[in-house]
């Protein structure tokens, strides 16, 4: 009896949850559908769209007409480059704060976070001007630097929370067994730190890939990553639904896949550990 009601309850909650999920996911689902249609079919009624024939043309057209791969490549370089550079700078900092904490550690961490909250528009012109004078406006180098800097606080912070979870007893045990400083670092700490570093990188690649203030304002034709390239569809010519859909699907697909693996890191990284 109790089981029957709970099964019925489960069925009802399942139906409601699935309905909500499909409504939320629908825009993404719809552009996936549109991306496999001809331009003329993509503007028909929903039923007309679904019953028209399927094609891969839009994907080919997007590449041919606007050199899609170049922008895709820009996105990869900027997202991965800024993340790697950030990790390089952040690992030693987070490491020392986690293992050799001092009275100032807390203050430094809070200050780093506060720089993340600086509104980008407040420093738009200075950065723009510096970029012109350094000759890195519309360059991937410039974007890598800026995105590294805006995500650095999150990288340091996440790494710090991961490193702090490595128990100090393990170090002591290794020392008792006669491990030297180098062995300690190489064989004990590094293997334990790698999952945290990987998670941090994952989240930051996602954040950098989707960043759309600096990428829009600091690039033009040459270094534009996908965020800026897609924005060029805001003043299109002729029919473009299928092309925009194909370009969008290709731009979000890799990040969607990565994002699904990073749910936990997302909570940790974006709430700065305030919600666990």
């Amino acid at each position, binding site marked *: 009896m109790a089981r029957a009601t709970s099964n019925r309850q489960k069925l009802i909650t399942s139906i409601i*949850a699935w309905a909500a999920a499909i409504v939320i996911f629908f825009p993404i689902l719809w552009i996936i559908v549109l991306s496999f249609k001809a331009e003329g079919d993509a503007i028909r009624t929903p039923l007309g769209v679904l019953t028209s024939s399927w094609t891969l043309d839009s994907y080919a057209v997007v590449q041919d007409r606007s050199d899609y791969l170049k922008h895709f490549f820009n996105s990869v370089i900027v997202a991965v480059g800024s993340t790697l550079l950030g990790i390089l700078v952040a690992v030693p*900092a987070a490491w020392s704060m986690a293992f050799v904490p001092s009275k100032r550690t807390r203050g430094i961490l809070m200050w780093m976070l506060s720089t993340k909250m600086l509104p980008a528009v407040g420093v738009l012109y200075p950065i723009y001007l510096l970029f012109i004078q350094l000759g890195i406006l519309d360059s991937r180098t410039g974007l890598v630097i800026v995105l590294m800097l805006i995500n650095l606080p999150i990288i340091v912070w996440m790494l710090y929370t991961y490193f702090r979870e490595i128990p100090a007893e393990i170090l002591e045990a290794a020392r008792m067994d006669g491990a030297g400083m180098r062995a300690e670092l190489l064989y004990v700490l590094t293997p334990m730190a790698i999952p945290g570093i990987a998670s941090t990188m994952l989240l930051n690649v996602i954040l950098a890939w989707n960043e759309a203030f600096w990428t829009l304002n600091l690039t033009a034709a040459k270094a534009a990553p996908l965020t800026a390239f897609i924005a060029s569809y805001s003043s299109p010519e002729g029919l473009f639904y299928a092309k925009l859909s194909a370009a969008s699907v290709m*731009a979000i697909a890799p990040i969607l896949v990565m994002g699904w693996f990073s749910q936990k890191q997302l909570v940790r990284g974006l709430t700065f550990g305030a919600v666990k």
Partner: protein
Amino acid sequence: MATQHSRSIARLMMAPAVVLLLGWMLVPLTMTLFFSFKKYLPLRGGDLGWVGFENYVRFVSSSSFWPAVGTTLLIVGGVLVITVLLGIALALLLDQPIWGQGIVRILVIAPFFVMPTVSGLVWKNMFMDPVNGFFAHIWRLFGAEPIQWLSHASMPSLVMIISWQWLPFATLILLTAIQSLDSEQLEAAEMDGARPVGRFWFITLPHLARAITVVILIQTIFLLSIFAEIFVTTAGAFGTKTLTYLIFQRVLESQNVGLGSAGGVYAIILANIVAVFLLRIVGKNLDA
């Protein structure tokens, strides 16, 4: 325990990150402050000298200032109300036993990973276009005149687009918080005869209070600087010019750098007020 030696190594290891962030903060901030006291028009005469607080006064007394404040508040407030309320509902729903929980979760979280320019353009064209958009087709199906979403209902449309992007974030964080709730407490309440509504009000909601505060503060910081969604949909037309967008236009479009910089200083002060509250919560957690 740490020796003098390890301390100085630690300081050395921290130096690159600290120096970079210090530079990233101080150099542009100083420049913004500097420009904000100048009449500076790069395309029309360049540096025209010091003007004291004139830019600050002109920025707030210009006819577009108060509408921009209103728009900003409406976007931040609207999106917060929608995402927090729906986020609580969705988190409660996803916490229940359901078939295909993993897939449902993935579908709900997906919008957060869509880049802002894509979601702006997809909503604008494929859904809100008054001729070929999905909504227009549905409206016509029921014999209604399609709505000119982004021109006649620009603010509700924008709030809807941005809420769609941020709902997954709120849901995910609130769900994480709900799952950390001690289930024994709920079971005890259930045994004592507390109804579901009572259990929600007196146990779940108080437990969520901190997570809700964190969601509100973090989203506020991000929502205050919403940019790309407006850039690709209305470009600030139809009353959708936020403070961030207004400053962007002053600085880059009309190249009135002095005036824009004064606006930038206001934006920085505003964000700092929110940040103080957020950092206080984060800091408390650091001690625990």
